[in-house]
């Protein structure tokens, strides 16, 4: 009996204790941040732009009965720090701003040119925001990027996040970004995000299809330390990826040897990049070895690829194409911006730790003057479902 009473007593107590705790936040009390933008406002102020998920819009069964209403809401406010700006925003958002589902963090061009170190600390420090969010730099203002909407996804922030995750260009998460920021001998890079024409909006009631403008990734932003110095376009970004040996997928297209006005495309399946620094006490140079393997998936011309010699010539041509793209990115980094964005400094650091001590303070200069030798090998491993081009043309 005594035990029974004690159990009952415990049960009653539990109903009080278990039902809640101090810092609880119900879903219905949160304003979930999907994307954040940081711009530079006058007087070195921070303009924080948040794309918030509208409650209810993301729940299942939204059959579009409501029609055209967008599921997100964009707010922005200026403050001395990111947190200060957020505090001011709290005054006009009825819910608690919740960072844990933030997909992207966009820096405005102006903000990036003046240095991002001023803005990154909040995201480093706060337990709510995630190390896995994507970092990008807007061509123009971050606010404009967040104000776009997406046709395919529920919000433009998620749309851009998926683009970054697909890694068609260079994309970097917050963790890797701060690692690059804090490592000597490495300069950060991030995806560039821009507003472009992304497609045509169709609809039965619409007289004329309208052009839909949306945010998309269009290359890479190049930093020196924490300041933006310039951009790489999409084709230079390919070269950057080859050189960093990070995501070696994609398509390489090169003119046919037999018929120069026709092209051949190879789909790259895997590849590897090896960077070997050399130092003789005076000059620094790098031997870069890139090996790619792929499938030949399109052939406009009609040469016989079963012929070993033709195939080898083709592989050489593909290798040359890769080297060209890589040189393009390298040239730009060495000549135009003078910053090491390929982690060559880290490679040098690992091989020559003693000499690194002398060179690390002027590494970007050393890098700009360094010679780079390329050895590129391409291998065609598969050819899709065809072995030879059917000779219709003759």
């Amino acid at each position, binding site marked *: 009996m005594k035990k029974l009473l004690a159990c009952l007593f415990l049960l009653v107590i539990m109903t009080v204790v278990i039902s809640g*705790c*101090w*810092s609880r936040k119900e879903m219905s009390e949160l304003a979930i941040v999907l994307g954040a933008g940081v711009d530079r406002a006058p007087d070195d102020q921070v303009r924080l732009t948040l794309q918030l998920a509208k409650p209810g819009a993301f729940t299942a069964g939204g059959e579009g009965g409501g029609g055209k209403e967008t599921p997100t809401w964009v707010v922005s406010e200026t403050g001395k720090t990111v947190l200060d700006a957020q505090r001011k925003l709290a005054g006009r958002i009825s819910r608690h701003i919740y960072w*844990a589902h933030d997909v992207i963090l966009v820096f405005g061009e102006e903000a990036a040119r003046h240095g991002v170190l001023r803005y990154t600390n909040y995201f*480093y420090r706060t*337990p709510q925001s*995630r*190390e*896995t969010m994507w970092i990008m730099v807007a061509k123009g203002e971050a606010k404009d990027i967040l104000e776009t909407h997406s046709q395919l996804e529920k919000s433009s922030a998620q749309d851009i996040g998926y683009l970054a995750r697909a890694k068609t260009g260079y994309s970097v998460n917050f*963790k890797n970004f*701060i*690692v690059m920021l*804090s*490592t000597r001998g490495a300069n950060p890079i991030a995806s560039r995000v821009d507003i472009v024409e992304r497609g045509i909006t169709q609809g039965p009631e619409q007289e004329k299809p309208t052009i839909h403008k949306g945010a998309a990734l269009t290359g890479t932003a190049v930093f020196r330390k924490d300041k933006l110095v310039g951009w790489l376009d999409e084709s230079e970004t390919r070269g950057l990826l080859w050189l960093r040996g990070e995501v070696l997928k994609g398509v390489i297209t090169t003119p046919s040897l037999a018929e120069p006005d026709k092209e051949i495309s190879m789909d790259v399946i895997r590849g590897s990049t090896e960077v070997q620094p050399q130092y003789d006490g005076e000059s620094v140079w790098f031997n870069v070895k890139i090996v790619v393997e792929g499938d030949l998936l399109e052939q406009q011309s009609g040469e016989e690829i079963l012929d070993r010699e033709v195939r080898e010539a083709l592989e050489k041509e593909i290798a040359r194409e890769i080297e060209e793209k890589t040189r393009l990115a390298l040239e730009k980094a060495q000549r135009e911006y003078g910053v090491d964005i390929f982690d060559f400094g*880290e490679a040098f*650091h*690992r*091989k020559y*730790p*003693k000499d*690194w*001590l002398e060179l690390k303070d002027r590494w970007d200069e050393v890098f700009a003057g360094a010679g780079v030798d390329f050895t590129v090998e391409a291998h065609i491993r598969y050819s899709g479902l065809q072995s030879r081009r059917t000779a219709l043309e003759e």
Partner: protein
Amino acid sequence: MPEGGKIDGKQAIFLMVSMVLPTTFFFVASVTAHLAKQDGWISILLATLGALLIAWLAVSLGLRFPGKTLFQFPEVILGRWPGKVVALLYIWWYIHMTAEILRQSGSFMVSVFMPETPIIVFELLIMAIAAYTVRNGLEVFTRVNQIILPLVLGLVIIMNILATPEMNLRRLLPVFMENGAVPVIKGAVMPAAWMGEIVTMAVLIPYLNKAKEAYRVAVTATLITGFFILAAQIGDLAIFGPEVTAGWLFPGLNKIRMIHLANFLERLEPIAMTIWIAGGFVKISLFYWVAALGSAQWLELKDYKPLVLPVGVILLALSIMVHESILGLLTFLGTFWGPYALTLFQVGIPLLLLVVAVLRGQGGARH
């Protein structure tokens, strides 16, 4: 004897691992990476070596005086009053250490998960359960630990494996060249002071059912702990690199936060919380028990149970009083704790006691 429980060798190993590992796992990399940069893992190796020496010291001392704990044999060695002073110092040290650990546990919960909750809530909850456990005696929390530790170790291993896609072992290079030996040794001080808590063996030996196993227990426990800390350290460095690792408060937590696999296995911090709370609870219970037992033996009481609540109140109050903020806690642990715990309580006094005991020919030759 105030404590009647007996535990076997395996249980003792489990206890000694739980004493150090679960919380150290989270923050050790931050301290070592700050001092030794990418060579932090070498610091851990050095620290393990140091902890092995401390373990040898503590066990040799304990075995000389069968049935007597660290709070009793100083009297035999140094005479009644000097011995009492030494034992009192140890009681202070255990109370202080438990308070620091308690503060640390609470700070973790507040700073990471529930910023608006007063820290006393977490501390009170942990202390209430720990007090209950300690009152029930050594055997009880030893058995609880037999359930908790495999869970904790399993989670630690799984978390490290899941985080491997983020790791790049080249971040550990170059090894040992540019920084020289001094930073590496400096970096070893802190982990050595944590792993040196193995000195607690000198309290535990009388409660082993086979005292002869003490060496094996201490060495095995230290090696297991060292291995896990090493793995955690290498994982943290390979993910974040030395600079960013040194910036985090709890690199082990950030490592778990980094895990994102196949779009659904992500946001695993609750597991970090599980490891921390479960492991921290055993750790606190053990030191709390030592403090209560030590006080009873010092006062020559028949039972330590009446002292559990008073000691608990002191611990709780002390843990709130010692630091004004988490930054104070960090500075204290990072700079003062190493020399204080290591030189005085883990090496200094035990070595002094052993030397005197050998010189005076006290204590049975090892049986």
